[in-house]
């Protein structure tokens, strides 16, 4: 049985250990938890849906506009108004599309049975040690009648799902290594083989949850009140951390707030600089024409540089036991695209794009999903309020494109018609660190990273960035997976 799905019982019955032995907890929290063990009154943990964004910033249901309200209502009536939705509520247009897609993938007609879908969600989220999503789906999985034995680990699941482990691993960390042999081994496994339609469904689910894990860490989503870690005395199942500083040791909140104010003063003008650069790029683009070789070099440089961007302080966080049981080979992580001579040909979007190729393949095998994803990608890519921090009426398309293409660049996907020099102009180092961490090893995202990029921007804008990152990542993974499937089919 899944430990953290029923952690309270297990803790009580199978050990004489105290809570503090199982989980590292600071003195403050220990006091709290000791108090609670006796009474067992559930209480919310954390402050609001996100650890990064002050609760009061996140829209209160009573204050939101009618549209967001109705989306929340709908989500609520379906049984989930999770913290992810609350944070996404900054961008109702996107949220609507996101929820529709997710609902379709999990609940509506599709090739995979319901418990398979949730289990795949668990597998995918566990790859990034995202206990938030794992817990959410463990509950759902059991609710739709899933076999609790599967939760003991992948080896408890049917052969067919085990076979998916490899794909999950590659897709999550190094999708460019995916070949048609991987696809073939899934589709031709005698009685355990996947059908093409099932595989597409699984691939969409995997990529959806990989990228959602990125979002969850990127926005510091806290556990829902109804899931484990959301309400008991027990800390969130990301064990190894304490409740109060789950954001990887950022000390006291007040201290940080104080710091932040100082910093804001220091960096004012950051936005203006960025806007100035965008303007310059816009204007001088026609004049100075970089040579083709120069363009290629710029792409390669971005690619290599993205590799040098250090993710997190390398205090290797050991995956928590609870979550790691859902995947094998925990050491397998993101590896830079162009590291150690492992050279893979650049993926050219002009040769295999979502719009022309991916869409058709998905829609053919899993009707309507192509449409839903297409819509979601477009909304995420085109979303703009024409604002930057306090400035109104700004055309942000250049910035958005730079972010999108930078992420694809990290996955080795190149747009022939993009000048990668722009990325260097527009994205500063701390932002790149954040992007890299969130996309490639989201579990290492810290509150400090979240705070240190774009310091003058609104939280809603940072969430907007997160949406872009998440969708760009999903599309990148999908492109590799679908290309492999296409190659298998031809």
């Amino acid at each position: 049985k899944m430990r953290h799905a029923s952690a309270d019982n297990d803790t009580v019955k199978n050990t004489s250990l105290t809570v503090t032995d199982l989980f590292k907890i600071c003195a403050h929290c220990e006091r709290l938890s000791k108090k609670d063990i006796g009474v067992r009154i559930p209480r919310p943990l954390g402050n609001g849906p996100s650890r990064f964004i002050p609760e009061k910033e996140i829209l209160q249901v009573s204050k939101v506009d009618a549209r967001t309200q109705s989306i929340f209502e709908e989500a609520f009536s379906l049984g989930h108004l999770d913290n992810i939705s609350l944070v996404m509520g900054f961008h109702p247009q996107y949220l609507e599309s996101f929820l529709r897609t997710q609902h379709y993938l999990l609940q509506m007609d599709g090739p995979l049975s319901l418990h398979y879908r949730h289990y795949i969600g668990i597998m995918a989220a566990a790859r990034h040690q995202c206990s938030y999503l794992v817990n959410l789906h463990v509950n759902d999985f059991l609710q739709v009648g899933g076999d609790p034995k599967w939760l003991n680990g992948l080896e408890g699941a049917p052969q067919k799902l085990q076979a998916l482990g490899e794909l999950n691993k590659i897709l999550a960390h190094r999708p460019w290594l995916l070949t048609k042999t991987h696809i073939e081994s899934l589709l031709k496994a005698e009685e355990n083989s996947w059908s093409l339609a099932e595989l597409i469904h699984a691939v969409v689910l995997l990529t959806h949850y990989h990228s959602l894990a990125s979002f969850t860490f990127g926005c510091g989503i806290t556990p829902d009140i109804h899931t484990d870690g959301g309400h008991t005395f027990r800390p969130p199942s990301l064990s190894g951390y304490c409740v109060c500083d789950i954001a990887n040791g950022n000390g006291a909140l007040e201290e940080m707030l104080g710091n932040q104010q100082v910093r804001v003063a220091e960096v004012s003008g950051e936005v203006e600089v960025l806007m100035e650069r965008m303007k310059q790029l816009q204007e001088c683009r026609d004049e100075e024409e970089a040579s083709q070789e120069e363009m290629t070099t710029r792409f390669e440089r971005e690619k290599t540089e993205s590799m040098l961007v250090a993710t997190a302080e390398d205090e290797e966080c050991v995956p928590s036991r609870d979550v790691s049981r859902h995947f094998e080979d925990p050491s397998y992580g993101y590896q830079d695209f162009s590291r150690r001579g492992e050279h893979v040909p650049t993926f050219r979007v002009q040769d295999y794009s979502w719009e022309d190729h991916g869409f058709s393949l998905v829609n053919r095998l899993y009707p309507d999903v192509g449409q839903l994803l297409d819509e979601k990608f477009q909304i995420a890519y085109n979303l703009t309020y024409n604002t930057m921090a306090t400035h109104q009426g700004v055309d942000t398309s250049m910035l958005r494109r730079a972010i999108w293409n930078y992420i694809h660049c990290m996955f080795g996907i190149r747009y022939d018609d993009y000048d990668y020099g722009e990325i260097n102009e527009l994205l500063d180092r701390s932002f790149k660190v954040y992007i890299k961490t969130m996309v490639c090893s989201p579990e290492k995202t810290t509150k400090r990273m979240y705070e240190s990029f774009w310091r003058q921007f609104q939280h809603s804008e940072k969430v907007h960035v997160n949406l872009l990152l998440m969708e760009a990542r999903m599309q990148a993974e999908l492109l590799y997976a679908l290309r492999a499937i296409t190659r298998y089919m031809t």
Partner: protein
Amino acid sequence: MEKMACVSTVSSRTMFCHLDAPANAISVCRDATQVVVAGRNIFKIYAMEEDGFVERLNLRVGRKPSLNFSCADVMWHQMEENLLATAATNGAVVTWNLARPCRNKQEHLFTEHKRTVNKVCFHPTEVHMLLSGSQDGFMKCFDLRKKESVSTFSGQSESVRDVQFSMKDYFTFAASFENGNVQLWDIRRPDRYERMFTAHTGPVFCCDWHPEDRGWLATGGRDKMVKVWDMTTNRAKEIYCVQTIASVARVKWRPERRWHLATCSMMVDHNIYVWDVRRPFIPFATFEEHKDVTTGIVWSHQHDPYVLLSGSKDSTLYQHIFKDASRPVDRANPEGLCFGLFGDLAFAAKESLMTGEAGRKPYPAGDRRYPIFFFKKPDVTEQFAQVASALSVFESEADGSSRMDWFIKTARRYLLSGKPFAELCDHNAKVAKELNRPQVSTTWTMLRIMFSDPGNPALPANHNMSKLGNIPLMNSFNLKEMSSALNERNKENRQDNLHNLETNLNNDENEETEGSDGQAEYLFGDAELDDDDLYSMEHENQAEEAEFSLPQEAFPLRHEIVDHPSAPEPPAEKPESPQVSGSEAESFCLTPMESISLISVSQLLYQPQLPPSFFCPVVREMLDYYAEQGDVQMAVSVLIVLGDRIRKEIDELTQEHWYMSYIDLLQRFELWNVSNEVIKLSTCSAITCLNQASTTLHINCSNCKRPMSNKGWICDRCHQCASVCAVCHHVVKGLFVWCQGCSHGGHLEHVMEWLKSSNHCPAGCGHLCEYT
């Protein structure tokens, strides 16, 4: 026309050559002697000669060719034979002059587009005019005598996928967009398009003007459709639509054939189709040579309808000759056959076939037969094979054997769960008996006997057994095995009494394999006379099965069973035995006389307790047999009633197949409840999940009458609570029950309560509601 003939004789065979890299586009020069192939890593000119393609020129020069060579599209000028234009993936538009003396033939480089250029197009009659369409949403018109574009057209939307000058209107061009729109522009007016309409859902990948018909535009989209638009009217009118099986990447009208066009697809499908737009269901011709998606198609010459060139991602360049094309219509089967629910049969076939046979072969049971002929006025311009079909409907006789009443009644009345096993069997046996299906009835009875707990024998409630008088039921569970086992060797003893039979049996052991034929014949003939349900049914069974054709192999096995009555498995050296035994066991027919004697014998020979598993192979065979006979109802019902007793014996796929067939039948007869019960009782995961699919119920808001798109109780359009209880006037948040007549309703308890005391709708609408 002369020209055409001359062209097609130059090289009139299907041929191909390997390219070094995948092609993205191809184009031919005007006199159809050379073709240019362009792609990310290839840019070459080939000459088309009698014995194949010959490489003439490699335009991709330089040590490290730049992205300007990475072509998304290419076009050869149709008037100026040395002029080519390419669209590069990095946004450059490049023109090439083959007459340049140096190796690098590049003439102009326009880098005005910010994104990939998807398409370039020369004006058909104006030498210096070139048009481009790009991902950045702009179209640009270049005058090749100048260094930059002369006009820019903004589509006011995302990417332009195709641009095409009109063949007939000098100033007009069409542009197709990723958002599904098609725009018409006047080249002199860059400020605004002349006309815009939505042609497809999703991107329109290509468009092509008809070479002769002014105003006909063909478009192809990601939505897998090819549409032909008439632009001469005020609103663009869709006049033809062809549905293909994959997104349409290119469309090209066929020269000299007014209604023909060629298409190829972007994904999955590698073939090139030539369609007659008037016959949208089946391609006129297909070229199936490519191994990967076809990326470029072009007719070799504007007056030659017989030669088509194509380039593909599989790195080949093909010349297709029309006479080598496959014609799907020739392979299409113009016959259709369909069974109606009640045994009616409709049959459509080529008219010629039907008229020939109509007089000679009247349908034996078909008292009524309606030949219906559909005629399509033959169109001489269509080169399609004209097929006229005749449709005949054979109605089954009103009370013929093919009537399905028994099926419906059986389905309704069978009990599949909820009672002890023995009772279920008895009940079902009774149902079968009442419906005059004695064989089935007997099967149920036997199942009960075989699988009931021997320590707790059921009472001989069965009517069949009562015939056997004083013979204890305990033994009769051996009846089936015994009767078949003893059958063939008793041929001489049929009339004999118990004693003789027994003796004979014992003596007979050495002559196992003898003379089964004669005996079998006898049996079949004889059985006609029986009116006993048990035996006559079994006879019928056998007649259908035509078992008598192979008695030789089958019968000897019985000895083994008799000799080793307690052996749980038939001996291994006779591998056929388990297979045969089941169906055969049932197919034996004996006179009542014999059966009595047999059972007496069995009393002597058998130990009364055999484990139920002993029968499993037999029952499995029996189920297979029923399913084979088309009575999948029986197979599934037994499967459900026996449950775990038999499930392991039958492989999952077979079970699933049976379930699916039975559920399908039930649903065709609109027996929804039964079908649902079967789904619930099934143990196959593939079946039980049927109940979880399509469970959405769509409702309209009771207030504004529009569909409730959100799943809650509040309508998101009128912001009213949509489901208010008509009794208590509060919002219903749980179970909502409503009258299907007047659509008023409310809380389940409230409505129940209300309708106990009143017949009228609680809302006061005057409808007489009913609650059942």
